[in-house]
């Protein structure tokens, strides 16, 4: 575990110094800050609209960060040969893959905490009420972005960053159209369709009182399942690869 953490810390140290990360964060936060200035809110729903739009912006920003960090990390390390000095240590290939993903996920966590704090503070300042359920929304976004990062890491063990980014967008699309394709749970294929819809809790967070602890548990379980499965595939693919 020490080696996985060492790699993760190194990934975080590198990632948080990337200008692109903070440009995305800043851009998203500027947009969040201007949401309350938008006109045409109906009476009584203004806070809900703020929460919905703010979470949508955070979602887009988190996915962009996941793609930027995860799509190119392993290909560029192999291309630039920075991976050599790591893999010739007593490091297993799976440790490198998991450490890389963990570092990206921790970076996403840092960005998510920044997003969450600003969105929460802006909401409280502008509307005068603490919107605690935003925390659930940001948590679900972080989990989904971490799954996307795991997908990118898995594909990037065998493909170039462009292919990784395109396939990740396709993955996102396909994992969010279960209802459109299958209709509902009555469809026999419903349970077998790979879906990330469980992470989409913007509606209950923005318009309701959030989700239950049990639902958060299901979400966490789904997150662990997706990330674990994708990382196993990534480790297998990377272990078979010449670098």
């Amino acid at each position, binding site marked *: 575990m*020490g*080696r996985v*953490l*060492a*790699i993760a*810390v*190194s990934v975080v*140290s*590198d990632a948080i*110094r*990337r200008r692109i990360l903070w440009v995305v964060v800043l851009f998203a936060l500027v947009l969040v800050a201007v949401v309350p200035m938008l006109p045409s809110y109906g009476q009584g729903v203004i806070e809900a609209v703020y929460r919905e739009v703010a979470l949508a912006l955070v979602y887009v920003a988190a996915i962009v960060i996941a793609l930027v960090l995860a799509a190119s990390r392993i290909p560029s390390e192999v291309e*630039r*040969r*920075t991976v*050599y*000095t*790591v*893999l*010739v*240590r*007593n*490091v*297993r290939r799976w440790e490198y893959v998991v450490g890389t993903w963990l570092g990206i996920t921790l970076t996403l966590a840092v960005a998510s905490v920044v997003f969450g704090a600003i969105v929460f503070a802006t909401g409280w300042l502008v509307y005068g009420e603490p919107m605690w359920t935003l925390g659930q929304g940001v948590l679900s976004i972080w989990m989904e972005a971490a799954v996307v990062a795991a997908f990118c890491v898995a594909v990037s063990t065998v493909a170039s960053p462009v292919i990784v980014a395109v396939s990740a967008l396709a993955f996102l699309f396909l994992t969010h159209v279960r209802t459109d394709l299958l209709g509902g749970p009555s469809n026999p294929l419903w349970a077998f369709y790979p879906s990330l819809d469980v992470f989409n809790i913007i509606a209950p967070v923005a318009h309701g009182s959030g989700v239950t602890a049990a639902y958060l548990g299901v979400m966490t379980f789904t997150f662990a399942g997706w990330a674990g499965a994708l990382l196993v595939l990534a480790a297998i693919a990377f272990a*078979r690869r*010449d*670098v």
Partner: protein
Amino acid sequence: MGSHTGALAVEIRGAAKRYGGSGGFVAVDHVDLAVRAGRVHGLLGPNGAGKTTTLKMLLGLVRPTEGTFSILGEPTGPSVRARVGFLPEQPYFPPLLTAEEVLRLHGRLAGIDSAQIASRGRDLLARVGLEGRGTTRLSKYSRGMLQRVGIAQALIAEPEVVVLDEPASGLDPVGQRDIRNLMLELRDGGVTVLLSSHQLSEVEAVCDEVTILNQGRVSAKGAIDDLLNVAGRTSIRARGASTTLPAEIQALMEDVAVSGSVWVFSVPDTAVRAVVDILDDNGWTIESVVPKRQSLEEYFSHMLETTEGEVA
């Protein structure tokens, strides 16, 4: 640090790497390599000879098509690699990290505790000439400085075997000299060094033994002296006032080179005593009498010409 001199520190048997299936490109073709502990062993060859691929197979970066690989008597794997330091050709590190962070990462991967990493890191950075530069981002480093960071990371775990792939690449003459001295220091400390290079002067200066690869195969191997000494001839270096050598030895001379009043030439071993006596009688000063040795460059180009001839 250090191993038993005489035992094999690195052993490769029948290493082969083929790309693209049975009819594909053969990068390495049944290479055997044995490096004795405590020696500096050169792996020599032109570009594309298979040196780097052989090293990558040894270190687990490339999956071999065939062959067995062992380091310090154990099949190569993550556990034995903890005792190995590796400097890749033109090492590159994440540019936003600092040298200290790179050493910390590699120290932690090697299982060294944090306090030791800090002190070893400082010592190593001083040893490779980067004292006071540890907190500078690597994006501000020159290629030569990155090479020095690469050397420091290779040594952070006090390895028993060090594998260096073109270590002088990108270094100025002073840096190249430092690398040579470092390799000799490591050898004196009992560390085995496997050096891959196409810089023949570097290999000749530090290696006890060499293995020469060409077109993926071992072309020659052995002690440098055995490979380079020319059997039956001795080189004489003499200084004299005359512009010509005594007539009675001119028929015996080969490979004559003259610079000012200094003459260097080779004669048959059997004629050395007579030639020295004649020069002495004629007032010449004998500066050296040594077995004739061709430079590694001469040996290498001769070998490549021979191989090309065979191929043609």
